[in-house]
C-alpha cells in the first residue's frame, strides 16, 4: 500500500510488474478527479510523470516521424517545435482544459483514460499513430485504431505502460476543432480532426465524442480524395456539403447529459465541412 515515484523506465516497469493492480498516475487530471469524488479508491499508485524516458520526444527527419513520450504534456505539444510537425495535435492540445491542466496532463494520460471526448485522440486517429506499449517482458506496437476498444477501454494490460506514440510528419494542411458549451475549459460535445496528405493525396478524418471510440470516416475520406485539388488547394462547395453529410453519417452518437445524438451528428458535419474548407480554401 504505497505511492511509488520511479525516476527511470526500468524502475517504473519494476513497479508496475510488482504491483500489477496499481493505479498509474501521470498528470493526475483524470485520476485525481475520480479520487477526489470518491469514485475510485487507490491503494498502490505508480507515478510516471518523473520518468525521463517518458518525458522525451524525438523528431526523425529521415523517416519523417515524431516520437512523443507518454509523459509529454499538452503545454509542450501546443508549442513549437512539436506544434509545427503535428499541427492538428497541437490545436487539440490548445483546447485541453486550461493552462493548469495542460501543464500537468499528458499524451499518455489521454491514451490511458481513452475517453471518446479525449481531445488528443482524434488527431492521433487521423494521423494513424502507432502506440508503443512496454512491460517488463518486452514491447509491442499497436495501431491507434486497435488500441482504443471502447469508452475508457483500451488494450493496455496490467503490468504494461504506455511508452509513447509515433506520428508521421505529414506534408499538407491539418487541423482540429470541437464544440462545447464554452470556449475555455470544456469537454468536447463533438470534435473532428482532419489531415490532408499532399504526398499520398489523401484526406483523413476522425471524429471524437460521437461514438464509443474515435471514428474514422472511410467513405468521406475516399470521396474527399477524389474531389479536392491538392495543387490548387481547391474544392467545390457541393463537394464540401457532401463530405459533411458522409462524415455525419459515420457518427454513432448517443444522447447523454452533455448533448443529444441529433445535435452531435449535426455538429460533426458542420465541423468536418469547416475543416475541409480550411484545408482547401479555394472554391
Amino acid at each position, binding site marked *: 500500500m504505497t*505511492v511509488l515515484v520511479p525516476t527511470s523506465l526500468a524502475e517504473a516497469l519494476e513497479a508496475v510488474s510488482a504491483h500489477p493492480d496499481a493505479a498509474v498516475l501521470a498528470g493526475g487530471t483524470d485520476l485525481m478527479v475520480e479520487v477526489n469524488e470518491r469514485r475510485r479508491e487507490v491503494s498502490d499508485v505508480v507515478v510516471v510523470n518523473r520518468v525521463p524516458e517518458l518525458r522525451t520526444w524525438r523528431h526523425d527527419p529521415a523517416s519523417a516521424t515524431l516520437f512523443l513520450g507518454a509523459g509529454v504534456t499538452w503545454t509542450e505539444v501546443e508549442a513549437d517545435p512539436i506544434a509545427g510537425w503535428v499541427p492538428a495535435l497541437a490545436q487539440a492540445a490548445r483546447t485541453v482544459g486550461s*493552462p493548469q491542466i495542460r501543464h500537468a496532463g499528458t499524451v499518455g494520460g489521454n491514451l490511458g483514460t481513452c475517453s471518446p471526448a479525449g481531445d488528443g485522440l482524434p488527431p492521433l486517429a487521423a494521423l494513424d499513430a502507432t502506440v508503443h506499449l512496454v512491460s517488463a517482458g518486452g514491447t509491442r506496437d499497436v495501431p491507434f485504431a486497435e488500441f482504443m476498444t471502447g469508452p475508457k477501454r483500451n488494450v493496455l494490460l496490467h503490468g504494461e505502460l504506455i511508452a509513447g506514440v509515433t506520428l508521421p510528419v505529414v506534408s499538407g494542411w491539418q487541423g482540429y476543432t470541437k464544440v462545447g458549451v464554452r470556449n475555455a475549459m470544456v469537454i468536447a460535445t463533438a470534435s473532428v480532426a482532419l489531415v490532408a496528405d499532399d504526398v499520398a493525396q489523401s484526406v483523413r478524418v476522425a471524429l471524437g465524442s460521437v461514438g464509443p471510440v474515435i471514428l474514422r470516416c472511410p467513405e468521406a475520406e475516399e470521396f474527399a480524395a477524389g474531389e479536392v485539388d491538392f495543387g490548387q488547394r481547391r474544392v467545390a462547395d457541393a463537394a464540401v456539403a457532401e463530405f459533411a453529410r458522409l462524415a455525419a453519417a459515420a457518427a454513432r452518437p448517443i444522447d447523454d447529459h452533455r448533448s443529444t445524438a441529433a445535435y452531435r451528428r449535426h455538429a460533426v458535419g458542420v465541423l468536418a465541412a469547416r475543416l475541409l474548407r480550411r484545408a482547401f480554401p479555394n472554391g
Partner: protein
Amino acid sequence: MAEHYTLHVNGTAREVRDAGTGESLLFVLRERLGLMGTKGACEQGECGSCSVLVDGQLVCGCLVLAASAVGQRIVTIEGVAPVGAPTDVQQAFVDAGAVQCGFCTPGLIMATHSLLDRSPQPSELEIREELSGNICRCTGYGRIIEAVQRVAVARSTAAAGGPSA
C-alpha cells in the same frame, strides 16, 4: 494506509505524517500543513482556486497527488510574499478593484505571476487564455485583466528606467 513523506513548500521542508494515500496536495496544504491561502472549490481542476506552482509549473493543487510531489519545489500563495508586503501583482489587484469576495484571488495571483514571468507583455487575448483556468464569479474579469495590464506596464516602465509605480 498511512503515508509519511516530506514536502518542500515555500522553501521549507514540511513533514506529513499519517496521511491517506489518495490525498491531494490541496488537502494536505490546507488540512495537514495549515496553509489556508490555497482555496478548494470544485476539486476537479475546473475552477483554478487551488493553483500552486510545482517545480515552477502552474497546476491545480487538487489534481496533484500529494505523495507524488515529494522532492519537488512547491510554492503557494503564502510563499509569494510575506504578509504585509504584497507583490506588485497583489497590489495591482487591490488597486484595480480586481478583488471582490476574494475567494479566487490567491489562484489568480499565482496564475498572473506565472503568466508575467513567461510573457512580460501579454496581449489581452493572451491574458484571457492564460487566466481561463481561474473562475471568478464576482468581477466579470474586466478589472482582473486591467490589474494584469497595470503590472505589465509598470514593470516595462521600471525596466526602461522610468518612474516606478
